[in-house]
């Protein structure tokens, strides 16, 4: 029972981790909390639905294409909506623009798909693998596997590619990066695109397990943000650990305390953690310059 709970906790934890990574990427590069993250997740699920149902594409292609589409969308949004005036207005304004995006995405979803719930075609087997006495659904394994691969490639991208390095440089010191010839605006656009893309992929990953609905992203956005802050906002390893911790805590509370009070319990723990350890569970401090 306990192991089973922990395992399903880890699965939702990986989804939270993907969203949390998006929050971290945007926060690092522009000190903005991206309130649209949850709705980009929802958009990803709907784009995936369209690709899988209407175009009958295989699952991996759906995953990849959704990622690319959201990457492009995120970059365009950053370039034309967030970037103007970003340097001479407070971050709150950029934050509000992401809230605007979130509402617009929901609005577009309502116009295009209405307010019904959609079932995502099961592209993978719904069987379970039995290991000792624990049954693990294949879907779940796939979610975990894809997330791990994504995280790994993200680390390699940031550490070992030119664009990744310039993104890290731009996030640490904008002026310094500009002086040495880094295209900071491109790096920022890419960071936002990356975060949109991660959210979209998370949406496609979770869609076969859930129903697809225009407001499915609201709670997920909050959870992803919670995960990012739990692991200290701005840190990539923190985002992953925060996401997994949140998933496990949530499932354990639902299983052992009460499923009605699950959300309250999670947020109470969150407030307690923030009060006692304002740097996040890990105590990693992402340095901010005053």
């Amino acid at each position: 029972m306990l192991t089973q709970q922990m395992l399903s906790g880890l699965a939702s934890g990986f989804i939270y981790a993907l969203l949390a990574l998006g929050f971290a990427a945007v926060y690092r590069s522009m000190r903005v909390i991206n309130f649209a993250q949850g709705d980009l997740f929802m958009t990803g699920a709907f784009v995936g639905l369209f690709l899988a149902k209407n175009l009958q594409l295989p699952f991996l292609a759906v995953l990849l294409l959704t990622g690319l589409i959201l990457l492009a969308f995120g970059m365009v949004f950053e370039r034309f909506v967030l970037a103007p005036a970003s340097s001479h207005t407070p971050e709150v304004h950029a934050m509000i623009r992401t809230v605007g995006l979130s509402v617009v995405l929901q609005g577009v979803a309502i116009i295009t798909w209405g307010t019904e719930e959609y079932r995502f075609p099961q592209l993978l087997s719904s069987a379970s693998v039995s290991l000792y006495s624990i049954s693990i659904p294949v879907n779940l394994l796939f979610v975990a596997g894809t997330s791990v691969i994504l995280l790994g490639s993200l680390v390699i991208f940031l550490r070992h590619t030119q664009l990744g390095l310039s993104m890290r440089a731009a996030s640490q010191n904008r002026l310094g990066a500009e002086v040495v010839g880094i295209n900071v605006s491109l790096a920022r656009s890419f960071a936002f695109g990356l975060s949109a893309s991660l959210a979209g992929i998370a949406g496609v990953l979770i869609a076969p397990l859930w129903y697809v609905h225009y407001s499915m992203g609201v709670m997920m956005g909050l959870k992803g943000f919670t995960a990012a802050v739990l692991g200290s906002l701005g840190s990539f390893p923190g985002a992953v650990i925060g996401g997994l911790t949140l998933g496990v805590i949530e499932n354990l509370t639902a299983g052992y305390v009460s499923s009605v009070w699950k959300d309250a319990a999670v947020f109470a723990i969150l407030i307690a953690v923030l009060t006692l350890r304002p740097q996040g569970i890990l105590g990693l401090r992402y340095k901010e310059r005053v």
Partner: protein
Amino acid sequence: MNHSTQVSLRARLQLIALLAGFIVLPLLLNDRFFQHVLTTAFIYVVLILGLNTVIGLTGQVSLSQAALYGVGAYTSAILAKQISLPFPLSFALAVCVSASLGFLLSACVVKMRSHYLALATIGFGEILINVFRSAEKLTGGANGLSAIPAPRLGPWIIDTPLRYCYLALAVAIACYAGMFLITHSQLGNAFRAVRDNEFAASSLGLNTVRLKVLAFTLGAGYAGAAGALYAHLDGFIGPESFSTSQSILLFCVLVVGGLGHPLGSLIGALLFVIGQEFFRAFSHYQLLLFGSTVIIVMVFAPQGIAGLLRSMLGQGSDAAKNPLQGATWNPNGFKAVPSGPTEILSSDTSALAYKNQRESPVLVIKDLVVRYGGLIAVNDVSFNVISGEILCLIGPNGAGKTTLLNVIGGQQQPAQGSVMLNLSGTSAASEKEFSVIGLQPHNLARVGLARTFQTSQLFSELSTVENVLVGQYLHRKTRTSLLTILFLPWIAVKKDTEAREEAEKWLRFTGLYDYRYQLAKHLPYGLRRALEIARCLATNPSILLLDEPSAGMSPSERKSLATLLRSISNLGTTLIIVAHDLDLVRSLGDHVVVLDHGKVIFDGSPQDLRDSEKVIDAYLGKRRTELQLAF
């Protein structure tokens, strides 16, 4: 934004016109539907005014306003339904319960910053919503509460839309007036100071924790009032009206309307509610329209609609009318002060004074050690500061000067040693001698220790005179409490005027009077440094700590600075100056302490400084002969 303490005639006229319009409007719209819409709009005005206190004035991003609104609604509804409490009482209790929850919330989150704060308030809201949904006996669970009785005020039952509209309008007017008074009071100024620069605010004696808790409590009280009004409007409430998404929407509405000024909240709330009703027919497009409006306003008018209107009407744009380009600080205001520049070089007398006062130290630093990891930044430093003297703290880069100043100013804790303040000669202190270490910055300012910083820490969105008013806020004599502002506003206005006159006196003294309405962020460098000093003087310090006050100043500004510092010293203030500028030290210092590698290598008068071999070695390197001997 140019908030002036005195409300101008024009603003008053605008307000009266606005008021008259709102009173006549429900009668003109002789239609139940429109009256209902207007009622909802007034409720939102109250709700968003409350949010503006927290986010707009104090700069704390709080995302639990909708949940606190729900607390007010449920409280009033439950009280009215279950124990048939009359409306005025259930309304008052709703305000109290919401305000107490706001107080509780802020007590938990007050130390958190930006995103942590936003998240904690979201979490708090989610917990409350979970209670609304799950405590079925009390709140009706997901079905909500229905058949909430219509309010009864004495002989009148408020059961028609027109009557309800006037009830909501009365509450909205009261709330707007309260917020207007707060915004224009010294308290509002203190809130904005916390928003702009919390660090500097606490160094000027503002208890930032108390101010933030006050703002949260006030905002929650407003939410409670709005909630109570909402509960009895349709006789039905359900949990989905109070979700976090609603809180985030309210935040949007506030920012689109315009942060900081109550007018922005008014505009935002009215546009939001009326727009929502107007577009109800296109229900599918409602979200899209709302979202795009938010984005478009934020891109083209980041100051919000109120900000746009103000700049179109030419208010708050003094800076644009009065360009500061190339302005340098050239004070002539303190010519009236008896000491002229001629006295500055009369070093004989000051040296004498230095010897005479050796016995009455105002600050005793003993065996002070500060470590950064393995590095010892301040190593076993001891010296005394004599009351009324100008002490110059000099030394090469990295000698530990700023660290030492941070310890005295309460920004940093030493590993060992003591810093004792002895204010027996001055009136400010109740105790005779006490330790500075461990005192919070705002308490340090209250015992008479003020400081400036190496990089200027002004309240950038406040005007020059408002910056000085923040420094003055710690004086009880001219300060006004929230209750005075709300219930005895004429007394508050009178006190604010006095405080402003006092602040203007300091601006004259420092030669900044001509720039009193400029926003601090528009001031050129030299003026900023001068403003920092003026702000500190307003706290009426016994000891003033200055961290490289002359850095980056032009030669003429340096001269002005020396004159100003001498005048400040003549007021009886003890000055501790970290300096690089040796001319300043020679012309001004009564007492010089030289630090090198964290140690005191010289402690004496400026005359002896020139002959000290150690100091010459530290600055110029060892003499050649010695080096040769060493080989």
